[in-house]
């Protein structure tokens, strides 16, 4: 059963495998955050509804140059520590405020992210969303993202750190739909409704096989699940024991 839980609220009183954002006290499982409890027979986890970005290897992020020093650039990736790109990694010089896309190659024990393949982004627009809700903008196998691209004709990169970069296409419409998904990320039936919305707008949508669309509920829970898994890796060590 899914429900909204607050920090310290019990998720399960049974012994289960621990998912993300939960902790154990006296053999019972509690939530660490404000989120949606996701409990199955063998596992309990919570999908967060708010929060900053937890850097994680393999994530695509949008960084902003916040500092320029002799050796390179301090990059704000919306996390709680700054990342660094050595000058040698960039072909051209960067300036404070420049946008850089990158894939996180490594996160150390202080949760500092190492940025791989940095690329400066030219032009376009950035839409800021709640980082923990970005999985819904991508959808299962990128279905939502594909929908957004088709619906608005824009080139879109979803930075997992809550910065959505977009260029060309109908950016005003994109901004509205993205904010709508952000505001309703915890609800079900999101992909269907966005798709129906675009169709009502008279925009041709031509998305993957039918089977996948009708199977929306399953898709969503998987996306949410994926999100919970992610944080599990992060929570890992600490979530075992407390008090």
């Amino acid at each position, binding site marked *: 059963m899914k429900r909204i839980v607050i920090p310290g609220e019990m998720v399960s009183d049974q012994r289960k495998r621990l998912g993300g954002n939960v902790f154990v006290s006296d053999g019972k499982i509690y939530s660490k955050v404000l989120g949606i409890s996701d409990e199955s027979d063998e596992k309990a986890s919570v999908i967060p509804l708010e929060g900053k970005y937890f850097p994680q290897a393999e994530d695509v992020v949008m960084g902003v140059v916040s500092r320029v020093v002799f050796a390179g650039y301090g990059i704000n990736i919306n996390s709680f520590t700054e990342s660094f790109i050595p000058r040698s990694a960039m072909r051209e010089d960067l300036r404070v*405020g420049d946008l850089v896309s990158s894939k996180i190659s490594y996160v150390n024990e202080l949760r500092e992210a190492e940025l791989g393949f940095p690329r400066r982004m030219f032009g376009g627009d950035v839409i800021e969303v709640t980082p923990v809700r970005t999985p819904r903008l991508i959808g299962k196998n990128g279905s939502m993202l594909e929908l957004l691209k088709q619906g608005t004709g824009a080139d879109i990169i979803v930075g997992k750190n809550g910065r959505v970069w977009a260029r060309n296409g109908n950016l005003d419409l994109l901004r509205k739909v993205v904010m709508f998904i952000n505001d309703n990320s915890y609800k079900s039936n999101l992909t269907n409704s966005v798709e129906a919305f675009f169709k009502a707008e008279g925009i041709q949508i031509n998305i993957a096989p039918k089977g996948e669309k009708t199977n929306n509920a399953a898709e969503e829970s998987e996306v949410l699940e994926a999100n919970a898994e992610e944080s599990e890796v992060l929570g890992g060590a600490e979530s075992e024991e407390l008090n």
Partner: protein
Amino acid sequence: MRQTVLENDVSKITELAKQGKRLDGRALDEMRDFTLELGLCENAEGSAKIRLGQTEVLAGIKMGVDKPYPDSPDEGAISVGAELLPLAHSEYEAGPPSFDEIEVARVVDRGIRESKAIDFASLCIKEGEAVWVAFMDFYAINADGNLFDAGSIAGLASFLSAKVPKLNDKNKIIKHEYSGKLEMKRMPLLTTFVKVGGKIMVDPTYVEEKAAEARFSVSTTEDGYMAAMQKGMGGSFNVEEVNYMIDKAFIIGAETRKKLIKQMKQ
């Protein structure tokens, strides 16, 4: 939410300004809409909270009894303070008053003081012995640009709604009893402009302030006076630009005043 300013945004704002447009779709000479909430703070003699776009400022008045200055024994005084609370923006820090805080407080102060909106002689309780001091302090609760005008509107609204406490025969304030309202003769309002990409725009947001070269504020009254001016930031204006801004300030000030009166009546 966004507090890291992208170079992208700055250049976009500049580009748009050159075409006479703005990021949020406003005209260059268009203020953001505002709402006022009056009398939020019961311990204050007058209080007003303004929400100007996403900028939120809370102003309040405390009336105190003090000895007059020797050179003006029959005159009371006003005092204006501003705090850019660390609540309001990740850039603001707790600590002693910053240059920005002092500037915005002093500009708002001059706008009201120099317009002679408040007759200091009317704040006299007993010549040479006791006068009223009206302390107006305003706090940035959420900062999205133009704290000057937000502070000025909220400040004026709190002065307009302020009550004067009753005094006992020893000139001590009797709690929760009032002798009347604070008398305001004029309604001075600041109007603040910035210059971006060579164009003048009113009521800048936080990112627009970041893109700006220069800032100019002028306080105008309903009867055609200017009461205070302040040019800020590194850039410069020519005389035509200043004249343009003054003309605009009277028009925008009058509109704002109308909105303020309407909201105060509700």
